[in-house]
Structures are given as C-alpha cells and as structure tokens.
C-alpha cells in the first residue's frame, strides 16, 4: 500500500499547492484597492485559463499545421507532400473512416430513437435506461475487451468461447470465421462496439426531446386521427428534428476522434485502419512528425464543419423555443 499512498499523496499535494497558490494570490490582490482592482481581478481570474489555452491548444494547433509541411524529423520543408501521401496512398484508411462516420452514427441514432419512443410508452423505464446507458461510463478500451470476448475465435471442432461464433453455430453455420481477421466485415463488427456505447447517449437525449414535445400538440394530432406511424412521422420527428441532427453529428465527431477501439482490437490491421489510429501510429510508433501532423490536420478539417453545423442547429433550436 506504500505505493498507493505515495501516488495518492502526490496528487493531494498538487491539489493542496494549487489551492494554496490561488488563495494567496486572492488574498494579496484583494488588498489592493482603487482603480487597479478591477483590471487586476480580471487578469487573475481569466489569466491562468487564457495562458493555458494559448500554450495548450492555440500554439500547438498552429505548430501542428506547420509541422505537417515538413518531413518526418521536422527538419526539411516538403510542402504538401504529406497530404499527397494521405490522399493518394491512404485511400483505404480514408474510405474506412468514411464508412465509420456514416454507419455508426446513423445506427446509433436510429436505435436510440427507437428506444426513446418505446420507452416513452413504458411505465418503469429507468432500469432499462440505466443499463443501456451504462456502456458510456466505461472506457473504450474496456468496451473493446468486452467485445473481443464476444468475437473470440475457436476452431469449429473445439468448444466455442466467443458468443458470436456460438450463436452463429446454433443457427446452423458450421464454420464460423475468425471474426476480427475477416475483412471487410470486421469493420462493421468494430462499429458495433461504438454503437453499443453510443446508443445510450442517443436514447437519453432523444428521450428528453420527445418528452419535451408539448402534450397539446400530440393531443391535437391524435384528435385529428394521427396514430402510430403517422403520429411518429408527421408530428414527433419534425418536432425533434434539430435534436436528431445534433445527436447524429455529435456521434460523428466522436467517431472521427476515437482511436481506442481500433487500436485495442486490431491496431488497424486486417483492413480496419482509421484516420485517428493512423495518426497515432505515424506520430508515436513511426515517429514521423510530418505525416502524423498531416493526419491530425485532416481530422481537424473534417471535424470543424461538423461542429459549426451543430452549433448553428443548436442556435436554431433555441430560437424556436
């Protein structure tokens, strides 16, 4: 336990020092009266955050863009060569990533919507909601290990250990493949893990949106004879449209950035590589700063329009209300 103690105590020490510093600064600055007080307060309150943001996000982002124009060691300027490399030789990675950002968000949102609608009609929904949401609390790595057990392969002559192989055999298939190695289907199996995690998020957000539809609107529609599917498509969906979009795009952004699943399950092999993992591989395994940076910029460029669109949607939604 000595190890635990020393580790935790260094954490607590850091926290204590942090608070002490802040309190000291507050105390000293609080004593200064007069015209200087407000600007000083402004600097003290805002300064640390702004400095950290500049050092931690702004400057590194600019440097990364710069680094992407240099070679692997960062010494030689090579212009757009890294980007040519990305778009000419890494097309399978790009295509894969595209598949991911289309299929995983759509599947998660659709399933989340279905669950939200069904849960709306249930009496005791909170247990189901908890359990379906639970995968969001565990790490991607943990989720990957959970699902690697499901996808585990054994020779058909042996007893099966992976749930998927077993189910497939019970359904009559004699010779289930080694799922993780089976390209291109393995990509979709990895997406299943993402969907498993994200459905809870979609479900909770859409459930709140559905419950927020004013009951008068629903009653009026029901009085007009709209039930079941008609109610769903003519009333429910339009009223939650912007929430649907926000959920969809939020998951898309997550899918773009997450490399944990691919790294843990296949490390990008067997045709499963995506941009986020390739960036990590180039930067930290191949030590190619130029290519790693170029991939990061590609990610950045892909994410920015999504976020802008999302923010625009949210403002529209707020304006409606």
């Amino acid at each position, binding site marked *: 336990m000595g190890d635990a103690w020393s580790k935790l105590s260094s954490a607590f020490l850091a926290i204590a020092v942090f608070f002490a510093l802040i309190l000291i600064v507050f105390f000293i600055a609080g004593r200064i009266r007069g015209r200087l007080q*407000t600007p000083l307060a402004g600097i003290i*309150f805002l300064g640390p955050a702004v400095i950290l943001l500049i050092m931690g996000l702004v400057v590194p982002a600019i440097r990364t863009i710069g680094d992407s124009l240099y070679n692997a060691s960062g010494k030689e300027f090579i212009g757009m060569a890294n980007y040519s490399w990305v778009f000419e030789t890494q097309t399978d990675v790009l295509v894969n990533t595209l598949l991911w950002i289309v299929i995983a968000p759509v599947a998660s949102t659709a399933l989340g919507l279905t669950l939200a609608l069904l849960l709306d009609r249930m009496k005791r929904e909170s247990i189901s909601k908890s359990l379906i949401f*639970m995968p969001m609390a565990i790490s991607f790595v943990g989720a990957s290990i959970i699902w690697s057990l499901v996808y585990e392969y054994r020779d058909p002559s042996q007893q099966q250990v992976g749930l998927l192989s077993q189910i497939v055999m019970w359904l009559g298939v004699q010779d289930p493949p080694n799922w993780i190695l089976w390209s291109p289907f393995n990509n979709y199996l990895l997406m299943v893990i993402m969907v498993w995690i994200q*459905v809870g998020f979609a479900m*909770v957000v859409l459930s709140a949106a559905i419950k927020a539809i004013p009951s008068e609107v629903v*009653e009026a529609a029901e009085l007009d004879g709209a039930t079941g599917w008609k109610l769903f498509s003519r009333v429910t969906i339009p009223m939650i449209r912007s929430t649907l979009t926000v959920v969809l795009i939020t998951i898309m952004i997550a899918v773009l950035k997450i490399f*944990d699943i691919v790294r843990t399950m296949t490390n990008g092999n067997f045709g499963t590589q995506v941009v986020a993992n390739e960036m990590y591989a180039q930067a930290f395994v191949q030590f190619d700063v130029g290519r790693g940076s170029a991939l990061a910029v590609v990610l950045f460029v892909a994410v920015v329009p999504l976020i802008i669109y999302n923010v625009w949607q949210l403002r529209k939604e707020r304006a409606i209300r």
Partner: protein
Amino acid sequence: MSVEAHEVIAMPQPAKESIPEAARRKMSSPWASAVVVLITVIWTVPTLGLLITSLRPAADAQNTGWWTWFTSPAVTLSNYGEVLTGGATIPGGITPYFWNSFAIALPAAIFPLILATMAAYALAWIPFKWSTGVFFAIFALQVVPLQMALLPLLQMFNLGWSIGPIPIFPDLNKPGSEQSLLAGTYIPLWIAHTMFALPLAIFLIHNFMAQLPRDVMEAAKVDGASHFLIFRKIVLPLAVPAIASFAIFQFLWVWNDLLVALTFAGGTPDVAPITAYLSNIKGTYGAQLHLITAGAFIAIIVPLIVFFALQRFFVRGLLAGSVKG
C-alpha cells in the same frame, strides 16, 4: 467517458404530464415493453460475459464458453489475485496503474474546474472591452481535436519552449541528461488534461454564471466587496451543483482516456493509468482471457460505481450541458 462532442444540448423542462398522457402511459403497450426488455438484455449480456469469464478458472475460461458456467459453475478469485499483483503469465500487476489512474484523474478534474470557474466568472461579471470576443474564442477552441495539440505539447514538455530568448515553458532537463525532470511524474498529464478540458468547462460554467441574480451581485459591489470576496463568498457556494456535475464528467473522462495517457505517460507503472495498461496487455496477452477480463473489470468498476451512484448528476449534466469530446 467516451463520448465526444462539445455541443450544448440544452433541453427544456419536460412538460408536466397531462391526464391523457398519464393515462396513455398506464395503458402502455406490452409489446413495446417486451422489445425494450429484449434490447436491454442484449445490451447487458456482453458485460455479463466479461464478469463471468473473469471469475472462472483459467482452463474453463480459455476452452469453454462463459454461458456454460450456468450448467457447471466453478468460481475462482485467483484471476483477480494474479492480475492485481502480477504473476507467472503477466508480470507486473494492475495495482500501480489503478492508483495512477486515481492520482491522474483527481487533480485533472479539480484543476480545470477551478480555473474554468474563475474564468467564467470573469467573463460573466467583470466587464471589460474584449470579454465577448475572448469568450467566443474560448468557445471556438472546442473544435480543436486533441490530436492537433499532442505532438507540439509533448515537445514542449520535453524540450521546453521559448520565443527567442524568452523561455515560455522552461526546458527542465535533469542535470547532465537529455531527460526532462517532468518525465516519470504526473505533471505533464495534469497540465495536458487541464488544458484540454478548459474550453468546454468554461463554456458550461459560463452558462451557469450568466444566470446568477444580478441584484445580489450589484448589492455586493455597492457594499464595496472586491471581486475576490464576491467570488469566494457568493459565487462559489452557488456554483457547487454545476461544478459537481462537471467534476464527475471530467473525472470519468480522464479515468477512461487513452490518448493523452499514451502520449504523455508512455506505459510505465510509475505514471501510466489503467487504460494504457489494459490496452497493452490486450495486445500482448490477448489469449489469456481469464486475466484480461479480470483486468478489464477492475478498470471499469470505478466508472461503474460512479455512474450508478451518481446517475442523476450524470444525466442532468448530459442534458443541461454537453457531452465531452
């Protein structure tokens, strides 16, 4: 936490149930319930499989499906024992990494929180010329993915960073060696996590700050209280629920993070968190099902406890704020 998005999903309060609505719920469709129950079961089964496998003897776990455990139950805690302290198969236990995760996540939840609350207060209540611009710039920084900042930040920690002759971040070399003094400490991790958490944190807490009652703030100023006093005595106590929600999210986010951990902590037991350890043993010892499932369960037990105990905060934070990226 594994979701990614910095959008505010501000939900209006759910409309109070009218009588027809309540009636509709009571006459709920059993068909709908059945489908939901089925999906819930499907959702829980994989995790159940993990748990059961981790409790089975090695031979059982490697050679038979976990579902056969129900017909021939055999339970052992030795997998957990071996994973915790290390053993013949996987040298080096998970325990140091477990404590690393705590030691990283606790400060990494608190630091951004406090700094963000201070910044949010300033942006909301200390009027100055560029406050809107600064706020918008901070909000916009949410678009920058972690990947854009990692390499230069790593360089900064290892080699320092100066503009011309001015050292912005000192080059903290151990005397006589290439290695930075920071290597093998948690400090780069704390700083990195704090930096990355700030844009979203400031945005969320600012939402809250802006809604504080103006008259209370004005009254305090008229009484001659300094901003520091107002912050400490009035704002902070009021902000506790908002801060608590964010703190929980941030703790889980850092606990579950892999990218920052791998970048700044490598894989050594002195600083690497549990996610890095898991990711590495899955690669090398993936066949030792009984052990990696036990390791995985140890890694997820803390988030699970936090999640189930603090669900209300979780969901409220999710809906009233946004999901971390």
